[in-house]
Structure formats: C-alpha cells, structure tokens
C-alpha cells in the first residue's frame, strides 16, 4: 500500500528514490548473507527502505551505501535477537564435505564451465554462510558489496583496525574451510 503522508515533500522523496533505489540489489545481497533466508531478507529490505526514508535527514553523505547498510544491519540484528533461541552454525560445523564441489577450477568458458561456475558460487556461498556473524558481515561488505575499509568501518560502527582484523580472521577461516573441503573431495 502506498503511504501518503500529508506533510511529505516530493523533492525529498524524489531525491531519496534516486539515491537509494539503484542500490536495491546491493541491499538485498547483504540482507541475504546476513540473514541466510530469502523471505526474511525481503522483509528486512523493505523495512530498511521505509526506515531510511523516515530518517533520511540523518544521511550526511557522500556515499549512500554505508548509511543504508547500517540501517539494514540494525534491522538484521533485531532479527538475530528474535531468532536467538536457535543459535547460528559457526565455521566449525562445516557442511557434509561429500556434497561439496571443489572450488578451484580452470577458467574456460564452455557451457560445462559455466555450470561449474554456478555450482562454485553455491559452494562458496555455503562456506561464507558458515562464518560467524561479525566475520561474515565484514567479509561480504568487502568482497561482495565492494566497500572500502573506511566504508565498512562506517557501516558497522567499528574502527578501521577492527575491520582489518575481522577481515583477516574471516579470510583465514574461509581458507581453512576451503582447504579442508578440497582435501575431503579428493
């Protein structure tokens, strides 16, 4: 349902739409990785846009994504709290290795390679999903949303040094899981 408030300012709304709607896929991608559930991610994204519009005055620029992501992140954290009864899996609980495909591959673009690439993406997503929350978040903001360290720091409200050490840990955990998987699939 469209929300028409009597005091809404068309210029402000237009500016908001122009600035934020181009990043819908980015916001949705982050929500998928943070919540690991498609339906929850959709709800969080919608809530994020509504809340962002409401608090648009707090946006100071220049980059819009860290501001939007920070709002999304708060919504996701509320969702974690709701789910707290069912704790998330951590990196130690790597899924059954036998189901996984090896991650390294030759880069030829035959149709078979294309299928392999998609299967690889699934395998990598599963590995990322096993990372504990602060590491997964930093990793996704860096590798998938392409944020700079400073922008990540702004998004998660932590110093750049913390971002750096989380990213190093995240990659180390991922590398270990990755190697374990390759060995298992041999």
């Amino acid at each position, binding site marked *: 349902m469209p929300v028409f408030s009597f005091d809404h300012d068309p210029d402000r709304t237009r500016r908001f739409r122009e600035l934020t709607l181009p990043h819908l896929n980015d916001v949705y991608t982050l929500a998928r990785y943070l919540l690991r559930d498609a339906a929850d991610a959709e709800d969080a994204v919608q809530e994020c846009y509504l809340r962002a519009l409401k608090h648009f005055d707090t946006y100071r620029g220049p980059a819009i994504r860290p501001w939007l992501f920070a709002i999304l992140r708060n919504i996701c954290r509320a969702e974690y709290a709701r789910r707290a009864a069912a704790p998330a899996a951590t990196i130690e609980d790597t899924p059954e290795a036998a189901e996984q495909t090896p991650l390294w591959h030759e880069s030829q*673009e035959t149709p078979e390679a294309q299928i392999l690439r998609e299967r690889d993406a699934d395998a990598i997503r599963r590995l990322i999903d096993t990372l504990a929350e602060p590491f997964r978040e930093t990793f996704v903001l860096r590798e998938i949303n392409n944020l700079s360290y400073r922008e990540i720091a702004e998004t998660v409200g932590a110093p750049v040094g913390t971002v750096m050490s989380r990213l190093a840990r995240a990659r180390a955990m991922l590398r270990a899981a990755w190697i374990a998987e390759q060995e298992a699939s041999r």
Partner: protein
Amino acid sequence: MTCEEAEILIHALIDGELDASHAREVEAHVAACTHCTAALAAYRQMSQVIAGAALRYTAPESLRRRVEAALPKATAAAPSRRLVLRGFAMGSAVSALAATGLVAIVLREDDEQRIMSEIVSAHLRSLQAGHLTDVLSTDQHTVKPWFNGRIDVAPPVIDLTAQGFTLIGGRLDYVDARPIGAVVYKRRAHVINLFVAQTANTEHRAARTETLQGYNIRTWSDRGLKFWAISDIGADELAEFSEKFEAATRANKEG
C-alpha cells in the same frame, strides 16, 4: 615487521588499501618470509576465485515492486510520460499540443528513453554465453583498429587496467537499428559495456547516471561522440569509470 602484523596487513595489500610506504614494508616482509609468501599467494588466489564467482543476489521483481509501492510517489499528481503519450496515440488534441511545442519535448525524451532501453537490451544480450566480445584482447592497439570499416566512428579504446577497469575487447552491436561500437571492460566479476555512437552535437555534455531495469547507465558526450557506459556495478564505481575514461581521453589528446 612481524608475521603477526603482516598476517593482517597482507589483506590490506590485496585490497589496495595501503599507502605506498606501508605497501613497500609489507612487500619487503613477504619477500623475506616463506610463510607469508605462501599466505599472500593463497589469499590472492582466493580473492580472484571469489571475485570471479557470481555471489551477488538480484532482488526479486516482486520485492522491487513492494519497495517502490511502499515509498510515497515523488510526483503523485503529474501523469507519467507514458500516459501523456497514450493520449497522443489516441489522436486527441494532437494538433493543439503540437502548437505548444510540448510534442517535440515529449518525443525527444521518449526517444532517449527508447535508446536507453535498447542499450540495456544490448547489454543483456552481450552477457549471454559467447556474445560478449567479437575481438578479444586486452591490448587497445588490437581492439581499436578492429572497429575500422565496421562502424562510422572510431571509438576511443583506452586501457584502464591500471585504474582498476580491465579492457577485455570490443564488439559490434545494434542499437536504434544501426551498428554501434561496444568496448568491453571488466571490474572484478562485473562487465561494463561502453557503447559509442556519433552525435550531431559536438559540445561536451557532462556525464549523468540513470538506472534502468536495475542497471546503471552513465551517459556523456564529447566532441561529436556519445557514450553510454552500462553495468551492474554501483553508480559510484560507474562514475569512477567514466571519470577515469574521460581523464585518459583528455590525456591522450593532449599528450
């Protein structure tokens, strides 16, 4: 530098986040340490595999509609251009409107929009298997001559690898029922198609970004050429691309 420090800083090195002097320090440590050499190589490879995998999600169309519907309309009172045009199609009051000059304005805009959506279609076609490039080369001196005789313009082909946008080739495409040159770049796993066509207007028109079907399209004109850069990368990165491209074009002209 200790290995403990390097273990964190090699990531900043891979991500291009270190200033020159720190980058040199980390490189010096890595060069002298077999453990860190192996780690750097492994993380580089891992980053490449991750950048090459399709890990982003696309928001479902239903979500896009939901979000759009939940936001107040920017111009709730004004009819959309599409509605205005439908009025024309029905033949009502066309001559009266033509006299006001409104028709010309509306149609020109619509023409731009139609070409824009053709650009999106051409971009989507190019992403399908085996259609991205007709000439596959990272060498601008191979790609540029390839366009000779195929289209009526000589598109500037500029290698922006050092600026983070890798030239991967060129392609002949069709937009507005005419052949058009496409220069293809990659940014991490993302394809950027740069379409180049002739325009009657020789003055410089500053770049602006629009979003259509989820793609960012940045358009600008310079010295009789019109450019459309289209990609699924963020608007800020696409702006960076057009700035680097324009800067390099200017440098080529002056240098």
